[in-house]
């Protein structure tokens, strides 16, 4: 059995006076597109903060390709590409300056990656904008640059937290297609957090997070069957109905 790209076991986390995540266990295999579906406030971003070691969990463990995030954090983090919910590009720097900075933070020589960056930029239609400040780009373009940046150092696990939020339908689809293609071609594991049910596809592995707990996990077909639903939307609604009513 191959090593899991991401293995989360029994993770719990609290903010002062408030339990946010309760005994979370899930895994993502290499080459697997796993959708973490949850309403706003379900705990998705907190879980991402734990996986990226911005926070440390109260209990449980997180391994990335077998590297414990607690004991071998640098090796674990080196496997990661991340698109956070909040934009993280520096608005006052140009695209090139942002990407150059990211290369340095990953220990990469920008010169060696120049061709790859130009190809990626051509792919998203931003070759001519490389010298522009990020501030001058649209929201969709910024998101796509963030995705290029997250994949630049060839990570083996991609985390995307609400990466399409606030974008129009075409930009959303373009980003999703880009990630799915990378997942299929390069065999990287993807944990895609979203509250948008229409981003789930039939072949995806689905984890439904609600109130800090995993409510369901498995293939979309299995979850629909277990909840007696005909669509993912129905299944999601039934799993999260209790609190939203």
């Amino acid at each position, binding site marked *: 059995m191959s090593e899991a790209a991401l293995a989360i076991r029994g993770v719990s986390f609290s903010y002062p006076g408030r339990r946010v995540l309760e005994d979370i266990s899930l895994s993502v295999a290499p080459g697997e597109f796993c959708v973490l579906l949850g309403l706003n406030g379900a705990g998705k971003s907190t879980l991402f903060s734990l996986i990226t*070691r911005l926070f*440390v969990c109260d209990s449980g463990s997180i391994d990335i390709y077998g590297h414990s995030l*607690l004991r071998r954090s640098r*090796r674990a983090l080196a496997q990661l590409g991340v698109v956070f919910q*909040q934009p*993280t590009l520096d608005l*006052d720097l140009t695209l090139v300056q942002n990407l150059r900075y990211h290369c340095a933070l990953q220990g990469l020589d920008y010169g060696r990656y120049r061709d790859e960056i130009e190809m990626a930029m051509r792919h998203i239609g931003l070759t001519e904008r490389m010298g522009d400040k990020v501030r001058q780009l649209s929201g969709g373009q910024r998101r796509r640059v963030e995705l290029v940046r997250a994949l630049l150092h060839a990570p083996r696990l991609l985390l995307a937290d609400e990466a399409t939020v606030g974008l129009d339908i075409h930009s959303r689809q373009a980003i999703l297609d880009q990630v799915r293609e990378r997942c299929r071609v390069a065999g990287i594991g993807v944990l895609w957090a979203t509250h948008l049910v229409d981003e789930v596809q039939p072949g995806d592995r689905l984890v439904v997070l609600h109130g800090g707990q995993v409510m369901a996990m498995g293939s979309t077909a299995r979850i629909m069957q277990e909840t007696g639903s005909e669509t993912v939307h129905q299944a999601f609604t039934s799993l999260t109905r209790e609190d939203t009513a």
Partner: protein
Amino acid sequence: MSPAQYIHCLGSIVMREALRFLHQRERFFGALVRPLVWLFIFAAGFRSILGVSIIPPYETYILYEEYIVPGLAAMILLFSGMQSSLSMVYDREMGSMRMLMVSPFPRWYLLLCKLVAGALVSIAQVYLFFIIAWFWEVEPPWMGYLLAFPALLISSLMMGALGLLLSSAIKQLENFAGVMNFVIFPMFFASSALYPLWRIRDSSVPLYEICRFNPFTHAVELIRFSLYGAINWGAAMVVIGALVLFLAGAVYGYDPARGLMTRKKGA
């Protein structure tokens, strides 16, 4: 990671900080205007009131303008160090801090890089201020400009480290203004930046003791002595000690397992 990668990482963080500073023109001019107002207006007005006797490192009577230039240089470092911390709080709120924190480099190293980057940007501002002050007839010996560099560097690192420590404990950007009032102004005014300590001792011994305890006072004196070709070892030791203390606190504060950031939503 090889040593070359570490150096490359440091270079990029310094470059980013410098580019950000140059792109934010208001910040650039704001940093210069503050000490110049003190030099051109305050010093001119108080020249006759606040006479300065012959005290080391000066070998003769000096004008008040000449006395306060090292203090104003330290003020640039203090404000700039705090500004740099402010940018850490802002980066944390806006998200770009996350990219730094998820880098596979050790977190202490990333914080050190950030600190060095902020220090170098601050020092560039100080030298620009020295050039303007020179036209205002504040003319230390040429060698002093060279000797002042290490003094400026460790002083700037010390104040930046204090800023980093504070930023690790600050939850939101709004809270920073309060800390500015409780840290920057007391540190600046309870020091030898604007008036010699003997004058303070004449009017209040407790205040004099506070000034002596204030690491900013020692940073000012370190800069003052070095600018006139001398080394104040006592001040240097205090500044280095404070730097180590503040930096250790900042590294602790930014450690997700132990630090002050651990339980702050949105950090």
